């Protein structure tokens, strides 16, 4: 049989961007430890709806840890206390009977609250739009095996590319910096021959957009990588800095 626990939740409720938010307390009984954190919130919402109250709003979609839609700042950690998982893959077995769990939205100037635990992350799309691509139109590409790419470089590019754009790095950073996110994309392309052509231009454009959108500076605390659900490495930031300096030297 499933093991169950009773918990107390302190959840940030905020009606819209401009409204003043506050914590509300909810008690939940008999939560299966095999359920995921979001399934626990589903149970809470079902309970609230049955009581005629408005459910807690939070972002989620694939519930497989890959879409990057879910967020939540749980007991002081983006995506909660477990390592290398998103909130949707965090399970209640990581908590104990009687625990008080505090749930907040991502808190960053770059991610304004939409409602409750849902935030606006369109700033990330804008950073990608600034240069997070290789400028090739569809059609006319050469054969995929025409250029050989060392396995090591391809694997490393893949590790950088595994960023899911959830924003945990920003939420974890005391400066609200988006450097890990930006550097992961810059690195992925800088590591591949097809991306080298625009490497300097890309680094410059993405960093400029990040600054413009109000994200903070990087002071190398490493909190971003420590909290990243996909374990995107700090070495990406080092590579971004190199690409950025190279770009500046060319100016």
């Amino acid at each position, binding site marked *: 049989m499933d093991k169950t626990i009773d918990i107390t939740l302190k959840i940030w409720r905020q009606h819209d961007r401009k409204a003043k938010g506050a914590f509300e307390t909810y008690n939940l009984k008999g939560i299966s430890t095999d359920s995921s954190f979001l399934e626990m919130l*589903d149970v809470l919402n079902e309970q609230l709806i049955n009581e005629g109250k408005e459910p807690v709003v939070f972002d989620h979609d694939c519930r497989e840890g890959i879409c990057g839609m879910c967020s939540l700042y749980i007991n002081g950690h983006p995506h909660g206390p477990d390592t290398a998982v998103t909130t949707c*893959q965090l399970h209640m077995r990581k908590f104990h009977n009687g625990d008080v769990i505090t749930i907040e939205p991502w808190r960053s100037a770059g991610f304004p609250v939409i409602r409750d635990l849902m935030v606006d992350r369109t700033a990330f799309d804008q950073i990608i739009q600034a240069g997070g691509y290789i400028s090739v139109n569809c059609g006319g590409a050469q054969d995929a095996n025409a250029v050989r790419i060392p*396995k090591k470089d391809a694997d490393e590019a893949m590790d950088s590319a595994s960023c899911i754009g959830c924003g945990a790095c920003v939420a974890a950073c005391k400066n609200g910096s988006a450097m890990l996110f930006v550097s992961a994309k810059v690195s992925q392309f800088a590591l591949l021959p097809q991306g080298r052509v625009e490497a300097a231009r890309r680094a410059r454009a993405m960093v400029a957009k990040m600054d413009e959108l109000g994200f903070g500076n990087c002071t190398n605390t490493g909190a971003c990588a420590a909290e990243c659900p996909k374990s995107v490495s700090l070495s990406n930031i080092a590579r971004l800095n190199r690409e950025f300096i190279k770009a500046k030297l060319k100016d």
Partner: protein
Amino acid sequence: MTKLDSKIPEGPLSEKWTNYKAHQKLVNPANKRRLDIIVVGTGLAGGSAAATLGELGFKVINFCIQDSPRRAHSIAAQGGINAAKNYQNDGDSVYRLFYDTIKGGDYRAREANVYRLAEVSNNIIDQCVAQGVPFAREYGGLLDNRSFGGAQVSRTFYAKGQTGQQLLLGAYSSLSRQVKKGNVVLKTRYEMLDLVIVDGRARGVIVRNLVTGKLERYSAHAVVVATGGYGNVYFLSTNAMASNGSVAVQCYRKGAYFANPAFAQIHPTCIPVHGEYQSKLTLMSESLRNDGRIWVPKKKEDAEAIRQGKLKPTQIKEEDRDYYLERRYPAFGNLVPRDVASRAAKERCDAGYGVGSTGLAVYLDFSEAIQRLGREAVEARYGNLFQMYEKIVDENPYETPMMIFPASHYTMGGLWVDYELMTTIPGLFAIGEANFSDHGANRLGASALMQGLADGYFVLPYTIQNYLSDQIQVPRFSTDLPEFEEAEKGVKARIERLMNIKGHRSVDSIHKELGHIMWNYVGMGRNKAGLELAIKKIDELKEVFYSDLRIPGAADTLNVELEKALRLEDFLVIGKLMAYDALNREESCGGHFREEYQTPDGEAQRNDKDYMYVSCWKYEGKGKKPELFKEELNYEAIKVQQRNYKQ
């Protein structure tokens, strides 16, 4: 009666697409700037189409329900993408990929479309590599491949267990570039709620801004829907929580035919259901069947002991294990197509050999692979999948076999489209999983990514021009036209009706009931009595929905429960349509298994004489049974056979 014209080009199969492109009408660059195209959805199909149409110079408006185009559920595809490159020199070719896809679909797909799909598959890989998609490579620096179900060659390209993610991010990058250039206007957190038709042509959409709750109108010269499948009709599925079939239903109500709704894919390797609170099922990639071996205990008493927790799978001796896929299908073994593998798992569990606490699970075992290749090699191939399994189930798959069970995963059915991917409504196109065209009654693994990107990058950007070429004189539309007014009024009335029920039941609680009905009667095994019962039960559930639904909050603001209620209302329509279609099709083919029609050894028994057609359903109005139209399938290049994965 409308005659279904599939517009298959003249000439031998291998020259049809070339001929089409050589003779189709095009739109010149100056005119492209004057033409607006609405694309709904930003997954592999929608994202790639919006990007490519933007590159060509059309003015594109692209909607998605998530906060970013990168969240579309294509991102969750794990295993890979097929292409006929034959880099492995193992005998692959465009023809073989075409043949495998037709056969895998149990001879219920349109030959010309599938051949075109196989033809452009190679371009997709080239395009993605050029975009910087980090596919897996060998030490020599060339691309690596693995094999998937229903194929005897290795033609699947992959990026770890995150191929869908990488391909989607590739399309998203291209899309972002067009947004920057101003050719694509992106509208995130928007949901389409109706299609607007002016003078018989698709000319716009009514959408709801999910943040403000306001309804908005958008017009265009053509509308492309790329809104995925309706697998969430089962409530529990591998689809994302917001995946839905509503746009398909809106188009169906406006006159687009819904094709083969009963063809739903139940994927064999998912993490089993474990509790009532469960919100979704997690897929374990088909690629695992390259090295994992599927088994249940040979003896019923062993299965019983395992269910009671008295015995561990690792304690079952080799000779007491029944590797039932290898036993039944020696030629393809663990790599039989999904429908075959799912049914075989159900057969063993129904017979009392299932494992796990519920008895609804089978083992997927890597011990032999770990012995053969070493733990490190297995980790390199499947590491992220093993980690995901461990996080969810709390068991280490390196030490004990995984438990898996079939779950709703993909829908082959969808909006009927012709060779140009246009529906029965002029100017309305459907691409990717939203259409029905390429997978027949069963989709092969790693073919969804291929189809989505084929449609979006290489097919639609051509075929849509054939439609738009005579639209260049048509000025941009005003959204003040009475057709827009009326459509918006209809959406408003629909929302008000749901908001005013003020009953007691949450959306999810009703959706779960629908899921049970669908899984039990319109799932892996179907029969006449069960399907008739399903229709009755869905009608009863509809009454509950319209009399006892409760949506808290208001309609003119962000309201997640309202969003879910609107989707559920449409799932109730789709569920019934699936049951009608399954009832009509008195044969078994692919994922559609009618228990009355099976061979003596339990395989699907097709009836080509009476059912070699695409069933196309036309909406006839509320409460009325839809009318059935048939698109007969003619196979010119392929000899139609009983599917055989045994020899």
